[in-house]
């Protein structure tokens, strides 16, 4: 092998070992969280929380041109099971009948409420109160985007915690009770994130207990992917209080912390990921103790992507969101008291996760080209592919073992076997395809940035 060929091979090898090694390390850290959970299961909810001392929650529903679904979304929010909460619906300058439908369904009337503009947002036109539900208000504002709408919800909120619901996922009806526990148990908690689970037919979100596996292999591949990365990798980072790249699922925030951080940024594709990263940066810089918790219980569910196009859009969105969040908070790498966030989580996410797809795709293309040009011996090429497969399989299987030992959402033999098959198949094209999409997203982000 010539010098340049060996160099490419070594770079790829180092990348694969580091990335998968960190994943395995994070899975091992997640084991501790899972073990604690199993140990404490007999004491779960004991003694019960005294509802008078549980912090009340504002549920923000941002709606834009959503006349068809908005009433159902608000009804679902009002049906949440929690001791004290209010629902703030923000109509983000809809051009359809969103506001009219809301007005009619909930008997809204304009109310002379004094608006407190703590976070800058587009002008608010009117605030409505509902004659039917004392805990429902609707804010009608000029069009400004999702982040702007959520910020308007934060400004209108009367309670110390808030959550912005998203139509892409469903929070279990009693999910807020679980999600608030980190705040009850530790007042230094700034945000509590859920981990998204895949629900093939929309029934798992209704109740706790074992779930059904989807019939299609395509959906099962997404389940394995979700178990490996968002769930156990996130739990591992949370163990180090370094969960930065949280997105795509329910997050309960402490409102004063969000206001102090100046709210969500409208120029971010995944605004919650950027905000959580920024909160880490600000609180690390202040040197104050804080917690960004990850709740492992399966309380937040989403349907799997039904088509390749939908999956591609999801993965590209995540990749651009990650790139934006990391680029926007690059000071995190130099922040004082940065600890594990500065020295491990940020570099890993900023360099390896952000640019990893480029290394994977370009590396694979280069190696294949070198093999075809007979610059790389066949044995070395096959050995490399085998290693790529083995490491990917190892991390996926480790996630399945963890799931099997902890939450047992898929307890039956057949379910374990089908997930194990998905873990094998995942490495034969699915992961490479996702890496290619992420690489594509990275290129687009880079071009837009320039």
């Amino acid at each position: 092998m010539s010098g340049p060929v060996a160099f490419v091979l070594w770079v790829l090898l180092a990348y694969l070992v580091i990335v998968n090694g960190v994943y395995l390390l994070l899975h091992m850290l997640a084991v501790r969280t899972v073990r604690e959970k199993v140990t404490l299961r007999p004491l779960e909810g004991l003694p019960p929380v005294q509802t008078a001392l549980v912090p009340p929650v504002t549920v923000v529903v941002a709606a834009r041109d959503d006349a068809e679904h908005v009433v159902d979304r608000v009804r679902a929010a009002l049906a949440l099971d929690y001791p004290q909460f209010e629902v703030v619906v923000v109509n983000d300058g809809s051009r359809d009948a969103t506001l009219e439908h809301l007005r009619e369904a909930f008997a809204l009337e304009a109310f002379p409420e004094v608006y407190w503009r703590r976070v800058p947002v587009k002008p608010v036109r009117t605030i409505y109160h509902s004659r039917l539900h004392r805990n429902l208000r609707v804010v009608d504002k000029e069009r400004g985007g999702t982040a702007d709408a959520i910020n308007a919800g934060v400004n209108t909120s009367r309670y110390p915690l808030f959550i912005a619901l998203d139509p892409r996922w469903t929070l279990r009806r009693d999910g807020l009770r679980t999600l608030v526990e980190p705040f009850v148990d530790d007042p230094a908690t700034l945000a509590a994130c859920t981990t998204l689970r895949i629900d093939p037919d929309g029934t798992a979100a209704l109740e706790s207990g074992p779930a059904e596996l989807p019939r299609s292999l395509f959906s099962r591949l997404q389940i394995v992917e979700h178990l490996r990365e968002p769930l156990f990798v996130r739990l591992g980072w949370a163990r180090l209080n370094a969960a930065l790249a949280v997105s795509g699922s329910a997050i309960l925030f402490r409102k004063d912390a969000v206001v102090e951080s100046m709210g969500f940024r409208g120029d971010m594709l995944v605004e919650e990921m950027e905000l959580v990263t920024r909160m880490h940066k600000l609180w690390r810089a202040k040197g104050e103790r804080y917690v960004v918790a990850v709740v492992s219980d399966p309380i937040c569910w989403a349907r799997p992507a039904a088509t390749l196009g939908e999956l591609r859009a999801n993965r590209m969105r995540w990749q651009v969101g990650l790139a934006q969040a990391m680029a926007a908070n690059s000071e995190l790498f130099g922040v004082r008291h940065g600890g594990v966030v500065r020295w491990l989580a940020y570099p890993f996410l900023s360099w390896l996760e952000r640019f990893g797809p480029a290394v994977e795709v370009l590396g694979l293309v280069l190696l294949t080209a070198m093999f075809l040009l007979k610059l790389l011996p066949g044995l070395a090429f096959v050995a490399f592919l085998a290693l790529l497969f083995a490491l990917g399989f190892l991390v996926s299987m480790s996630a399945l073992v963890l799931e099997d030992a902890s939450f047992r959402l898929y307890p039956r033999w057949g379910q374990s076997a089908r997930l194990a098959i998905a873990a094998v198949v995942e490495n034969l094209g699915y992961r490479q395809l996702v890496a290619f999409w992420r690489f594509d997203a990275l290129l687009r982000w880079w071009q837009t940035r320039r």
Partner: protein
Amino acid sequence: MGLLLLAAIAVLGALRRWRRRRMEAIENRWRNALSQAAEDPRGAALPTIGTWDLPHFLEAWNRMLESADEQTAERLGTLLGLHGIDERALRMLRKRSARLRLAAITAAGHLREPRAWDDLERLSQHGGPIVSFAAARALLRIDPRRALDVLSHSIPARDDWPLARLASVFETLGPSVVTNPLITMLLRRPRPGLDRVVKLARFGQPEKISSIVRGWLGSSTDPDVLMAALACIEDRADLPWALGAADHPEWRVRMSAARALGKVGNREELPALLQLLRDPVWWVRYHAAHGLIRLEGLEPHEIEAMREGARDSFAADMLGQALAERRWA
């Protein structure tokens, strides 16, 4: 390696299923025995509990005790005594495993076992957040008054004991038990931790607690202390303190002052509330507006006139909101 993990899943899964089936069978027998014991502990046929099964049995027993009435709890306790399980649970308190300890701690609490006192006291002082809190809860079950005495320093200081859960324990114990220890803690004014005690104070006898807390009005400038004291104002005699607090640099104190003025004030307090209505902080203005509406002797048309004549638009708007909220209530 991946294949090894695959094999591990298969083996672990098989083991777990076998254990689950075995435990289900055993638990069925336990359940029958526990149901019999709830009626007659001496007639219950409890199978021998092996060392491995003991924590599991205690967890099942603890679960049953959480919802049992006094008489059933006593009978189920007798059952443990008859089979020597109480002794074994006591020995488990010194085990290293958190699971064993937690099962034993909870059982000792349910049994109201005085022999466990020293171990529980040690665990409540030196254990991690979960073990120490479980031990504190067990102590409070065994002898609430003595436990509150022992824990009177930990309750304010240990912010890793979830306040909302501690509050539910206080609520269960009842005002007659918790009032005096709460007074002791309040008089000590622990820093940090006073805010925790103040929040728990709502579970004591209000007439005794509020006189203590009101007594702080003239003796502290600490915002947390002042806020707690202002919340207890029931009498016009204390109004000078509320008027003094209306100028406090901390907005939460000014907000509490606005509430207190609205609660016991009358026309004479109108200037102070009007001043608070122009406060830069939204919440202070909000409570000042509501306080103003509550003022004794002030007619609605006078408030409406005040709103219309207000030169400060923030104050006028807030008064308008408060009036509308009152109409909607």
